[in-house]
């Protein structure tokens, strides 16, 4: 992109205005769809959603309040009923009967409290900016904790619309960032784990590998010659347990084809150990490297464990709860029984904000990381599958011939 821009600068006068405008448009869209653009877009979409939901919910709540549709305080109701009970029953002064009837009233009161708690303790507290931010994030990531839910009709409708637009956007984010992360992770892996950063080590490693391959090739060739000659002395299981000559000949020929195939692939390795050749391989594109499955799994597990430690420190959860929360969130299940910031929602406002933001960043990063791991794993699995298919084909060929 930069080269194109420099070519621009050299001769700006030669461009017609329309072309320049077109170029600008192209640059703009490229930027928007580039990785920075999409991160910004997701962030701003979430923040905008937070504002929208906050306004809608608080507005609807106020409207309800002014209409007096909210039920009178449950405590006052309970108090009234107890007073009535007491004043009625004061004449016969039976302690057990009184306590039983009071228990009934208290049970009703308890259910009222339970329902109120389910509906949410306090709309103002729930729909603080950070709460609304986490809510809109859980909508577009399809986690859906459900600790905060819209109670008004408009809130529900807007949630549906918001999800319909936001989910494709988030998927775009995931695929984009996942690709970028996969590429960079592959690069890092090739530099660090395969020691390509240090040329001396890499050279020795490649030379060692080649020597091994060459030895293998030589052994195979020897084996080929042997099997082509006799066949009965070879270690092939089929020829050893069969006596008829036709089968032994067929198996030996099949073994020959199979091993020749392998040797042909092995013999591609150049024999010369010249420096330039090795240099080329070291510099070679990182696309050919496949990161093993175990590394991907290790990255995911370590991310979840680090999240467990982090949230354990922040929320006073134990490690099982922390890793359970991280797993449930990152796999986008999102039960919502453990939610960050839930404990301190009424106590300390600043801490709540920080905790919510931390959770949001953790989720966004973690989902991209998981997408990356899936990218890499897919590559590896396809690679493995191809190898297995090749093996099967070779197997079938030897069987049929």
């Amino acid at each position, binding site marked *: 992109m930069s080269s194109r821009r420099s*070519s621009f600068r050299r001769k700006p006068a030669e461009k017609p205005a329309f*072309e320049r405008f077109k170029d600008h448009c192209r640059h703009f869209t490229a930027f928007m769809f580039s990785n920075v653009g999409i991160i910004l877009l997701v962030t701003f979409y979430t923040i905008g959603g937070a504002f929208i939901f906050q306004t809608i919910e608080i507005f609807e709540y106020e409207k309800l309040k002014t209409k007096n549709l909210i039920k009178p305080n449950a*405590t006052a109701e*309970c*108090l009234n009923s*107890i*007073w009535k009970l*007491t*004043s009625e029953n*004061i004449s016969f002064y039976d*302690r057990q009967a*009184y*306590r*039983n009837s*009071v*228990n*009934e009233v*208290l*049970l009703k*009161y*308890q*259910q009222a*409290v*339970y329902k109120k*708690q389910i509906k949410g*303790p306090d709309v103002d507290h729930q729909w603080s900016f950070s709460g609304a931010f986490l809510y809109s994030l*859980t*909508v577009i990531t*399809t*986690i*859906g*904790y*459900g600790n905060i*839910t819209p109670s008004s009709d408009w809130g*529900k*409708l807007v*949630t*549906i619309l918001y*999800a*319909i637009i936001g*989910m494709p956007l988030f998927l775009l984010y995931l695929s984009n960032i996942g690709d970028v992360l996969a590429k960079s992770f592959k690069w890092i892996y090739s530099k660090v784990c395969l020691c390509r950063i240090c040329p001396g080590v890499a050279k020795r490693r490649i030379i060692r590998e080649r020597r091994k391959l060459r030895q293998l090739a030589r052994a195979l060739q020897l084996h080929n010659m042997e099997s082509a000659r006799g066949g009965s002395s070879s270690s092939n299981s089929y020829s050893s*347990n*069969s006596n*008829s000559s036709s*089968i032994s000949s067929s198996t030996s020929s099949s073994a020959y084809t199979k091993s020749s195939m392998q040797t042909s692939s092995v013999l591609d390795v150049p024999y010369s150990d010249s420096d330039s050749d090795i240099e080329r391989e070291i510099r070679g594109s990182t696309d050919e490297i496949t990161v093993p499955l175990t590394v991907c799994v290790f990255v995911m597990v370590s991310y979840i464990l680090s999240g467990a430690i982090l949230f354990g420190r922040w929320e006073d959860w134990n490690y*099982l*709860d922390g*890793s*359970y929360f991280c*797993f*449930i969130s990152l*796999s*986008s*299940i*999102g*039960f*919502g*029984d453990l939610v960050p910031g839930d404990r301190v929602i009424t106590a300390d406002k600043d801490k709540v904000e920080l905790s919510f933001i931390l959770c949001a960043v953790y989720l966004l990063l973690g989902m991209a990381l998981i997408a990356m791991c899936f990218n890499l794993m897919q590559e590896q699995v396809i690679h493995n599958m191809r190898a297995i298919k090749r093996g099967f084909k070779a197997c079938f060929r030897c*069987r*049929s011939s």
Partner: protein
Amino acid sequence: MSNKFQRSSPQMLGVEASTVSSTASNQPRKRVKRCCRNFVTFMCTQVGVGALIVFYAICGALAFMNIERKYVDETAKVVLSLRYNCSQRLWNITEELNLIDKKLWVNETNAVLQAYQVQIAAIIKNGYVGRSPAQIWSFPAALMFCLSVITMIGYGNMVPRTPWGKGFTVIYATFGIPLYILYFLNMGRVLARSFKFLYRSMHECTQERNYDARLEALESGSLGALTLRKKIIVPSTACLWVIIFYVLTGTIMFANWEKWSFLNSFYFCMTSLCKIGFGDFVPGASLTTAADVDAATQKLREDISADPNEVSDLQRITDQQFKLAINFIYMLLGMGLLAMCRNLMREEVSVKLKEMKEDAKLCVEDTRHRFVGCCGDPRDFYDNDYY
């Protein structure tokens, strides 16, 4: 797929038999191998994957029931004792103040009630639902829970409380989610194929007027007709109609069953199919919160056994089980439909993109020609500008 395989298998068997006829020792092994292969192909077909999902969910439900029912819920006793304490204190107040001064009595009682409320609220926040684990983890509910885990919906109306349950949820999800994705892809492919077939036949039916033209095309060469047939692509609007229709069906169904308003029902269907799953509306939950809590409170209330209510409760629960099963099927089918739409739309988008690319190429060619016409030397520009 399985049919095709079975059709081709006798021939293969014949070939194999001819090659290895002389060795009798290989025969049983081959047969076992063939059986294995047949089994694997069957498992990988659509029926197999669907059955596997259901089987996995049922196994998970049984396991979760076993694990979670062992959870000893001490909070019920705590709540009971709290209530007794509260009533005792109220009695004390009444005895002391003796209803002479209403204001003082009200103040004292209010304080007691406030304290009680705070205690209850704290307990509820820790996850007290007012039901015992055995009541919560009934079989259909556990099935619904398993489905919500493997489809990544995660309603969260019921969650594992024991550490074993939590660990098992994690393991269950790690194996269940890939299985579900397999189902999703498979189901999407099958449904997309059948829907395309349906659409194509409908399309042909509606185009009866062009029948003669098509007959001519057939006579002139079947290839032309074939290409004509292949060009029919299901438009994305058709997919959208299917989805909308499905969601509306769900909306009406749940609104009738659960006595939700249409908006709430629609909201539930959308959030479920989008895999968000807030859990503020869960089918069967209204029944559980209304009827089951009543039953639970009945039991908690000094253990007075209420026999006449038992029968109606049982009936309600069986009703609820049936509804939960329907809901299970609705969710699975809906996910399959979504996958179908995804497949079809992707196809359409790819075709459209190809067309757009061709158009763009034509456009570029056109502008290039114009450029050549306008300002003479072409090589100077195009090396820099376009490539």
